[in-house]
């Protein structure tokens, strides 16, 4: 059904109970529904587009989700950022095409000739600059939505086992050396983070790493220290978890604001089958314990459990959302993308109807558990459907209205706190230093 915020160029049908009974295909989609459908179906690019002048440099980094074209779907509740698959085979057969008409960009659904107005975020000027060491800045980090994503380590150890035990959906082992630097220099990272903050208004730097033989958190420490002390942004970490919880304490002391844990599949059989490295060398329970520990330390809504929807049975995905929200974390749900070169490249992309069920459920779970959504300033993630995006899927009920009002108040009240958090500052000195994690040189 269409909800408030639809940016359709044609007249949008009346929203209400009657509209809800109309089959979804003849209805224009609201921004979140369109986002979900674009993730599922991808998009073709019409020759009328002049993306070389208008769009960001496309670069697949990390697990491969960022290989698409970034676009923004304007809406009345919020603008929705989406990294639309354009490279994969399924995208070549999509009903959606991006076209340019009179200087504006539109996504056209060729089934019904609906046209949706969209915006193409321009490339940051710093993408083409070099760091002081001569490294192209886009090879250090890229914007994924409005935040800076940096893959800090030398690929993922799962790819280098014999036999390889890489996650079957992942392409990270295929990228390094091809599209990005093998290892990121701390000073390069500081320069790129500074440029992203000053010139692109980025408020959040997200460090991600593959398996580093249980030294994952240790490897991240110099980067967290440097960005917090020399740049001053919110910092998130997405690393293979450990049961050495003191390492999380240490990173929190250094200023880490967020941890996310990609356990991907809630069903243990799917976890074992598709994530052989995580199954063999880490274990699903380690993800759960680390998520529970960090959420307790940093507070409700600070950490996330990251899962993939569209591979395991729908019921398992809904159970994952329940588990994550019940412990006070927020769910980061990726719609499965059969990325080029990955072992699961031949798998089908998920059905839109199934994903709609998932994200409506996600909204309800966040509301039921009063998980803060869209409270942090200017963090729009293009690779996933953010919990905040699902406000477009909310039923028109009193409880939804109350939840939205609470979140708006929290957003307002949290401004001074985040302003303080985003000032460069030295790490707190605590007792965790005696169990130092290796290099602790302070660049401040």
């Amino acid at each position, binding site marked *: 059904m269409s909800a408030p915020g639809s940016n359709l160029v044609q007249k949008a049908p009346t929203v209400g109970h009657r509209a809800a009974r109309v089959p979804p295909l003849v209805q224009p989609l609201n921004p979140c529904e369109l986002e979900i459908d674009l993730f599922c179906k991808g998009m073709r690019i019409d020759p009328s587009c002049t*993306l070389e002048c208008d769009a960001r440099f*496309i670069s697949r980094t990390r697990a491969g989700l960022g290989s698409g074209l970034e676009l923004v779907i304007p809406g009345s509740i919020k603008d929705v950022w989406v990294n639309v698959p354009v*490279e994969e085979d399924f995208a070549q057969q999509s009903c959606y095409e991006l076209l340019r008409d009179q200087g504006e960009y539109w996504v056209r659904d060729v089934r019904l000739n609906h046209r949706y107005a969209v915006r193409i975020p321009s490339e940051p000027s710093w993408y083409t600059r070099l760091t002081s060491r001569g490294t192209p800045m886009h090879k250090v980090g890229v914007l994924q939505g409005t935040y800076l994503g940096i893959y800090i380590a030398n690929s993922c150890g799962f790819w*280098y086992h014999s036999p390889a035990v890489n996650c079957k959906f992942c392409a990270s*082992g295929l*990228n*390094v050396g091809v599209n990005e630097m093998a290892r990121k220099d701390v000073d390069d990272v500081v320069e790129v983070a500074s440029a992203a903050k000053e010139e692109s208004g980025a408020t959040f730097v997200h460090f991600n790493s593959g398996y580093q033989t249980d030294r994952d958190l240790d490897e991240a420490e110099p980067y967290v220290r440097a960005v917090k002390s020399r740049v001053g942004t919110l910092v998130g970490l997405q690393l293979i978890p450990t049961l050495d919880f003191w390492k999380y304490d240490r990173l929190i002391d250094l200023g880490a604001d967020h941890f996310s844990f990609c356990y991907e599949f809630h069903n243990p059989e799917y976890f074992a089958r598709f994530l052989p490295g995580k199954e063999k060398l880490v274990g699903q329970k380690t993800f759960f314990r680390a998520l529970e520990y960090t959420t307790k330390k940093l507070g409700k809504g600070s950490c996330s459990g990251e899962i993939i929807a569209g591979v395991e049975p729908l019921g398992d995905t809904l159970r994952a959302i329940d588990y994550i929200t019940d412990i006070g974390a927020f769910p980061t749900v990726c719609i499965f993308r059969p990325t080029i070169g990955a072992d*699961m490249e031949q798998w089908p992309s998920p059905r839109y109807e199934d994903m709609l069920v998932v994200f409506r459920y996600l909204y309800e779970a966040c509301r039921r558990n009063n998980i803060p959504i869209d409270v942090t300033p200017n963090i729009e993630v293009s690779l996933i459907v953010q919990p905040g995006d699902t406000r477009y899927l909310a039923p028109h009920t009193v409880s939804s209205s109350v939840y939205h009002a609470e979140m708006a108040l929290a957003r307002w009240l949290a401004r001074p706190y985040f302003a303080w958090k985003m000032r460069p500052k030295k790490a707190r000195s605590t007792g965790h230093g005696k169990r130092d994690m290796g290099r602790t040189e302070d660049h401040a």
Partner: protein
Amino acid sequence: MGNGIWEERRTTPNPNALPKAVPVSRIPSPKFPPMIDNLHEPGIPPKVQEEAGANAVVDAVAVALAASPDPFAIELNCAGLEVVAQTPLSNGLPNRARMKVFSPKPGYTRVFFFKKSLVPYSRDRYSYGGLDLRTSTVNAQEVAAWLAFLTSGFHPVKRPEKLRRAFPYEIPE
């Protein structure tokens, strides 16, 4: 669930494979490999001959191209020898499979399998892995397997036996 494709890593017998391993130095260099579709384009024959003359593995690839029943094209303005598969895929989509054979330094040859981005202005390359060779001889059957992998559009069951999927080297353009 699943089609099980990713689980398979078998070596498919290749009907196009050359009979047995031959030292590269004994393979005569082809003058005009017939299965290179764009051989008539200016600059392609000298490009093939120049690369084959400088690198014995490239020479073996050129021989295999000549013997292959499948069509290929050669990229002109690039480092090393870049071969592009021309056989359409069964799903009706164009075959985007490419192979670059280059030498990063004397005595080393790298064979890199990839697809180029479909976005006109993007220079992204999508890796399907590669081979790091430290010898000037190459098994002719191996080369035939590389070409079969290309022709299949990088189908998982056609992966060359020694393919390293994680191939963390800088690849020249």
